[in-house]
């Protein structure tokens, strides 16, 4: 479904993503693991087109020079030059890290905004109901301002917004960041439900333990370089991976 071939991203002269190959097959949940500054966010932003947008913006104001090379294929189509909005129309939807929500809008309004591009109102309504069924705690918060919700609830809203946009490929950037173990469990549980919707998921995370049992394949990156990839079992059997990303 998604094929990243020898992707390199430079911020000025610093290499953020180093000759990375990555593929995601339809229906999979794929995890990208790595420590801080490994290049996870850059990778996922590049797939979503945000890095390209940043590159244009910086170019215009004469700031940082960002270089992106390598092939980005989505359903055998080159998306490397597409703007973020065009990628969303193709079905690549990103949920950024640190639960970004529209703070002054109600929860329901946030979710409705997620479906802004979908013209069929009935379909949007159905998607929103679906989000409520995936994240039951949100049902009680429909009219509350998103800014007043807790971090975990905001993460649910953020993932929900991405889901309402009906993605084929859902990109989740550190969905568990800053959540309590209980909240993490809810988000991880939601991942299972999302899989049932036939949404392919690519997610990044620093701490692999809560999420590892639910992924099909994983990629481990360090300093922008892919150091290991494999199925869930292969990674779980690797002592190095266990010590580095499971904290054991």
């Amino acid at each position: 479904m998604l094929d990243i071939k020898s992707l390199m991203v430079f911020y000025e002269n610093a290499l953020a993503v180093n000759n990375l190959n990555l593929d995601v097959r339809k229906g999979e949940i794929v995890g990208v693991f790595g420590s801080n500054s490994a290049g996870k966010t850059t990778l996922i932003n590049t797939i979503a087109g945000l890095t390209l947008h940043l590159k244009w913006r910086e170019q215009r104001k004469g700031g940082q020079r960002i270089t992106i090379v390598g092939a980005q294929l989505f359903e055998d189509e080159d998306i490397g030059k597409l703007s973020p909005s065009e990628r969303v129309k193709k079905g690549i939807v990103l949920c950024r890290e640190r639960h970004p929500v529209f703070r002054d809008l109600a929860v329901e309004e946030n979710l409705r905004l997620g479906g802004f591009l979908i013209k069929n109102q009935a379909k949007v309504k159905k998607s929103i109901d679906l989000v409520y069924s995936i994240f039951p705690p949100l049902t009680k918060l429909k009219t509350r301002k998103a800014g007043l919700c807790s971090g975990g609830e905001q993460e649910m809203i953020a993932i929900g917004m991405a889901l309402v946009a009906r993605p084929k490929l859902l990109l989740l950037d550190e969905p568990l960041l800053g959540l309590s173990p209980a909240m993490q469990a809810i988000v991880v549980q939601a991942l299972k439900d999302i899989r049932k919707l036939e949404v392919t998921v690519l997610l990044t995370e620093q701490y692999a333990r809560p999420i590892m049992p639910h992924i099909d394949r994983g990629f481990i990156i360090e300093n922008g370089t892919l150091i290991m990839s494999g199925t869930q079992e292969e990674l779980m059997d690797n002592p190095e991976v266990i010590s580095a990303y499971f904290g054991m």
Partner: protein
Amino acid sequence: MKAGHRKERIDRGIKVRADEIFAISSYREILYLMGPRLLAIMGLLLFPLFRDVTGAYWQTVGFIACIIALLALSWNFLFSVGLVSLGQAFFFGVGAYFTGYFNHFLGLGPLFSIPLATVCGAVLCTIVIFPVLRLRGIYFALITFALPLFLMRIIEATGYLGGTEGISGLQRLPGLTFSVYVSVVVVLAVTFIYLRFFDTDYGLVLRAIHDNDMSVLAGGLSVQWYKAQAVFIAALPATFAGALMTHHYRIVGMPAFAMEYSILPLTAAVVGGTGTFAGGVLGAFILVPFSEMLRAFGTLRIVMYSALLLLFVVGLPEGIYRFAQRKYFQFERIVPLEEEKQ
């Protein structure tokens, strides 16, 4: 560009040797570093001597450019502390009226009235702005925008300080060349002092307030108090500009609060590069003569002026100064893509 290559931007040789200390090994390198600065300083210092060549008209334009440069420096200082001012005319006007008052009513000569007006004006400005320092962003900008209009109407309505007619017949300065020299020297001095000032620990706090005032507050410092001090320091060159201009023209009136003293410094700062002190000065020395040259076009002048501003804000948001600085200190080359081996 060839496939498998990318464009790289690196500093020119001399800057690479150390991050903080320049290792200078030849006159060529000294010239490379000091050249642009010396050129600017010498240009400014020598300009008043060429009165025969430029004529009094362009000398006056230079003088006004210096005045706007001082206001732009003041604007940039406030900006660096996170305060966006739309009312530089407020500082300017307060300085102007103070010096008018001191000279006309108290009979002080320019030697005393200008410095006194500078300090007293800055103190008054700080006191007036103090209560609204807690406001941020657009709200602070709106208040500063309203202040000069407010004072202007008070003077008009009460007739105090000369009312609509202003205070005229103030003591004269020795002449145009003297005024130009004083303004040039002060512009250079303020630029230098401000630049150095922001590198001190105290300046560090001010820059931190610009970045994240909540963290400064959490660090146990009173943001309000630091901002008040910053307003005072930023007001000094602006009130001085007002005082000097008043004595130069020997009259102070309501136009001292005119909008152009708010807008011109702002645009000079934007054109030169917001947050860069030298940039604001550069912007003033480009904008003021440019707007004078456009006088030939009559009403179209404002159109062309606005078009230029639009061009700058959209096309070169970083400002002339940063752009030139980058081009001067860095160069670009095409390098092959190399992956880092782990």
